[in-house]
């Protein structure tokens, strides 16, 4: 890629919008996963009793739905990101690509 093309793209407001929106979205979702996982594992290290407690009186402990919940959360967040990135963000990317076609 030529240096002028790089500068033109970086100056393009659509590109700036893409980078800041997608970057923020990716880091927010990553933080959710990291916070969920490390809270889970630190509770296990420090206060495992929390997860040992019974859910609604039976033998099923609270830890079971929490653990399965984290697996499901990973899948749902992956789906949300993929949908948004392949739709909205890729549309912005396409705009940026079109703008350099005009340059040529």
């Amino acid at each position, binding site marked *: *890629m030529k*240096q002028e093309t790089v500068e033109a793209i970086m100056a393009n407001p659509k590109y700036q919008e893409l980078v800041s929106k997608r970057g923020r979205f990716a880091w927010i*979702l990553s933080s959710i*996963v990291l916070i969920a996982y490390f809270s889970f*594992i*630190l509770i296990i290290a420090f206060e495992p009793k929390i997860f040992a407690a019974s859910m609604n009186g039976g033998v099923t402990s609270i830890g079971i739905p929490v653990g399965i919940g984290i697996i499901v959360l*990973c899948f749902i967040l992956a789906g949300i990101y*993929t949908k948004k*990135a392949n739709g909205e963000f890729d549309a912005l990317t396409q705009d940026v690509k079109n703008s350099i076609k005009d340059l040529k």
Partner: protein
Amino acid sequence: MKKILSSFLMLSIGLFATEALTGAVEKQPLNVSAIIMFLVFVAGTLGITYWAAKRTKSAKDFYTAGGGITGFQNGLAIAGDYMSAASFLGISALVYGAGYDGLIYSIGFLVGWPLILFLMSERLRNLGKYTFADVVAYRLRQGPIRSMAAAGAIVTVILYLIAQMVGAGKLIQLLFGLPYSWAVVIVGGLMMLYVTFGGMLATTWVQIIKAFLLLSGATFIALAVLVHFGFSFEAMFKSATLIHAKHDAIMSPGALVPDAYSAISLGLALMLGTAGLPHILMRFFTVADAKEARKSVFYATGFIGYFYILTFIIGFGAISILALHPEYFNGGVAAIQNGIQTIVSDENASKILIGDKKALIGGSDMAAIRLAHAVGGNFFLGFISAVAFATILAVVSGLTLAGASAISHDLYANVFRRGRVDEATEMKVSKIATIGLGIIAIFLGIVFEEQNIAFMVGLAFAIAASANFPVLFLAMFWKNLTTRGAVVGGLMGLFTAVILVILSPVVWVDVFKNAEAIFPYKYPALISVSVAFISIWLFSITDKSKSAASERDAFDAQNVRSQTGIGAEGASSH
């Protein structure tokens, strides 16, 4: 303190050991239906290899299947690469033996995936060509950076290969009743055929078929368990707590994560290690564009998560259903306790054998296999055994292809020949490298038969997390990274991980038989990853050389390409 130390020892046998299927096993009688089904699988995959060989003409075909794999196919193939036979048998065995702890383990292996999707997938696809070293070396000096990245990749691949080969040998003794060395030679030989002739296309389809078979087989077992309990999880847990030797303790966290350091360090190793495994990273270059790369990880996360939920049900199901079959146990007899049948020792009626590591014939790693027999008879047992063998084949093929690419594409073509090499020669070198790695894998598989290799998968993850990942991540995200920083930091991470593992209980005590470990923790990642990041940062910002300045200047162009895919490698036309 003593209690914590003993928990560490328990931990060291518990965790990564399950990935490696360690310990002595006894050879079982010849399993004819399993062998026939495995032969059907081999015939099918060799047919695919023949088909793939005709389509594998260019280097791009060989390394990335021409970039023409769809997101869905690649998602299955990633899952196929990641779900090893040892994780299927090992995690269900962990659930069977300790209940809830098995779930903690699975979750650690899963959480890396969404992070790879959010932060890495599109950048990898937009910058890379054949190997992850392409991404790292994008704006850095080819020679030193590729040598370092290739070294990290090859070490990771070989450690992982040894664990798989030894696991294969032991598993095949158990499941098929074939001698250990046969199994190792068969796995090594078939893997060389797939990779040398069929390249990435054959390897991908072997992984897709294997993932499909493994998920179907596991689904069937889990459904049989749920039917047995009328689809009530409460009933399944209730029955398990009544008859398991540990009773209610299986419903809550046990000894798996004993303290905060281990918890965080293990979490980091699993998460960042996944994002630094060369055979996994290579899969991102097999799809057409960033869109398909994202879909791949989304599907892979779904399949892998689903698989872990199945292994959890299978482990709990094994507790209750195996209790109906005293014939699966060494010295076990049926007994009624708390109004429900369990298995107790024939010498001591108060000793419950359910969940015991050794009581099950073949060891607790056989829990899922025995359960398959209990719910599906001899035919289904044969099917699951064949699937387990196929699983090992698929994983070693992916590993070998990644190792061969690091040798031919990074070391030979870009370092040794400085990029001045024609495609035909590069492909020839990668095929020779595949054969070489296959022979090394067979040789090491046989040499390590009687060795304690429980630390190897853990070490492979630690190196991937401490050497491969920090350099790759900062190459994509940090403008000020320089060649000097990346090489020094990557090597520091690698050596810190290796040294700390050698000084830890898993090697210093378990392998070298010393009384006490010098480094008390099993997981080095928190320290070695920090060492890597800090030294990369330090040796980059203090780098005032001219080449460092031009490397920083090249970041903008790299970043534009990584964000938009403009100029990225596309799919091949055929």
